[in-house]
C-alpha cells in the first residue's frame, strides 16, 4: 500500500516535472502579444523605404524567432546534404531574406490588432491561436503561432495566416529551386541574396 502510494506520487511528480513547460499558457499568450507589439511599434517607427523596414525587422527575427529551426525546415532533406558551414551561412541568408520580404509586406498594416483566442500547450511545443480583432476589414482572420518552448525562452517556429504556413510555403519554393539546380545550395543562396535588402 505504502509502496504503491510512493510510486504513484513519484510518478505524478515526474509527470508534473516532465510536462511543466518553460512558460505557462498565460505567459505564452503574453509572449505572442509582446512579439506582435514589438514588431508593430518597431516597423511603425522605421522609415518608409524597404531596406529600412528590413533592417528594423531583422533584430526582431533574431530575438523572437527560431531562425535555425526554420532554415532547417525550409530546406527539407537538402539540409543534411550541405556542410555545417553552409548550413550556418544559409541561416544568415535566410534571415536576411525573411526580414526583407516581410518588412515589405508590413506596409499593408493598417493598425489591425491581434486577440489571443486560445493556447494549446504541449510542453516543448505550443500553438497560440490569435485572430484579427473587430474594427477592421480583416476582422476574424486567423493567425496561428507555432511556438518552440524547450529552451530558456520561447521562440516562434512558424506563423500560419488563415491556414497558410510561412515555413511550409518557403519549403516548397526552396526545395523546388534546389531540385532545379541539382541541389546546389550556392545557387539558392545567390537568389536569396538578390532578394535581400539587409546584410
Amino acid at each position, binding site marked *: 500500500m505504502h509502496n504503491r502510494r510512493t510510486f504513484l506520487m513519484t510518478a505524478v511528480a515526474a509527470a508534473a516535472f516532465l510536462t511543466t513547460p518553460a512558460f505557462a499558457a498565460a505567459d505564452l499568450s503574453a509572449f505572442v502579444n509582446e512579439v506582435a507589439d514589438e514588431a508593430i511599434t518597431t516597423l511603425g517607427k522605421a522609415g518608409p523605404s524597404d531596406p529600412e523596414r528590413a533592417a528594423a525587422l531583422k533584430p526582431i527575427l533574431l530575438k523572437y524567432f527560431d531562425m535555425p529551426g526554420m532554415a532547417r525546415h525550409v530546406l527539407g532533406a537538402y539540409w543534411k546534404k550541405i556542410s555545417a558551414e553552409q548550413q550556418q551561412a544559409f541561416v544568415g541568408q535566410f534571415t536576411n531574406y525573411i526580414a526583407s520580404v516581410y518588412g515589405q509586406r508590413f506596409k499593408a498594416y493598417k493598425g489591425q490588432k491581434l486577440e489571443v483566442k486560445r493556447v494549446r500547450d504541449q510542453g516543448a511545443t505550443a500553438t497560440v491561436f490569435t485572430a484579427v480583432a473587430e474594427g477592421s476589414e480583416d476582422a476574424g482572420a486567423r493567425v496561428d503561432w507555432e511556438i518552440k518552448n524547450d529552451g530558456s525562452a520561447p521562440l516562434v517556429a512558424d506563423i500560419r495566416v488563415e*491556414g497558410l504556413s510561412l515555413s511550409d510555403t518557403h519549403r516548397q519554393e526552396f526545395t523546388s529551386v534546389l531540385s532545379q539546380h541539382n541541389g546546389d545550395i550556392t545557387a539558392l543562396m545567390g537568389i536569396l541574396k538578390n532578394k535581400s535588402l539587409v546584410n
Partner: protein
Amino acid sequence: MHFELKFGRVLLAAGTLSVALAIGGCASTPDPSDEAAVQAYNEANDPLEPMNRYFFEVNHFLDEVIVKPFAGYYHTALPQFAQDSVRNVVRNLHSPTILANDLFQGGFNRAGDTSSRFLINSTLGVGGLIDVADMFGIKYHDEDFGQTLGYYGSGEGPYLMLPVLGPSNPRDLTGKLVDYALDPLTWVGYIYNVGWINTVRGGLEGLDTRARNMQAIEELQKGSVDFYATIRSLYRQHRNDAIRNGEDPNDALSGITNDIPADGEDAPTVMLTPAKTQTDGEPQVSEAN
C-alpha cells in the same frame, strides 16, 4: 441545346488536355539515389510539372494583358460599396451549391446559416446587393463539392494547373463539374437560353477577387524565389484549410520532418492530410484572456 454545346466544349477541352498530357509526358523523375530530390519531388506531388508550368505561364500572360488591367480599372473606377455589391451578388448566387455541400457534409448549422443568408439577402438585401445577414451576425462561408470530397477523405491527386481556370487537382476539378451540374443557375441558363449568366458571374467573381488581392499578389510575386511553387503550395494549403473549415491542423508540427525515408515512396508530405479532430487527453487546450 446550349448546355449540350457547352458540354461538348468541356469534352473537347478534356480531349485536348489528355492529348497534351500524352505528348508532354511526365516530369523528369529525379534520380532515385538522390534522396533529397526524391523527397522534394514527392512533396510537390506534381508529376505533370512541365505541362503545369507551361499553362502557368499562359495564365500569367493572360493575367498581365487582360485580367490585371481590367481588375485595375474595376478597382479604381468603382467605389468600394459597388465592389462589395458585386461580391455580395456573386456570393448570394452561389448559395444553392454552398447549401447542398453544407448538407452533404452534415453541417446542419452551416446549412442553416446559408439558407438564412440567402433568404435575408435576397429580400432585405435587395436581390443580394447588400449583405444584411452579415450585419445580423450570420457570416458568409464557402463550400464546394471538392471540399465535400475532401471531407470524406478523398485524396487530392496530382497538382493541376488548368488553362484560364488556374490551380486545381483531380478532386477539385471533379468538384467543379459536380457544382456546375448542381447549380440552379446552370439550369436557368440552359432552359431560358441565357447561358451567359453563368459566364458573367464567373467573370465578375474572378475580376473582383483579382482586384481585392492586387497588392497581395504583387508582393507575393516580388518576394518569391519560385512563384509557380509558391502558388502550388498556397493553393494546397488553402484547400486543406477550407476542407477543415478553418479548424486548426492539429498535427501540423508533427508532420514536419527532415528525415529522409529509406523508401522515397513514403516521403513525408507536409500538411497534405486534413487534421483529425482533437483526441481526448492529448493536447491540452487552455483558454486565454
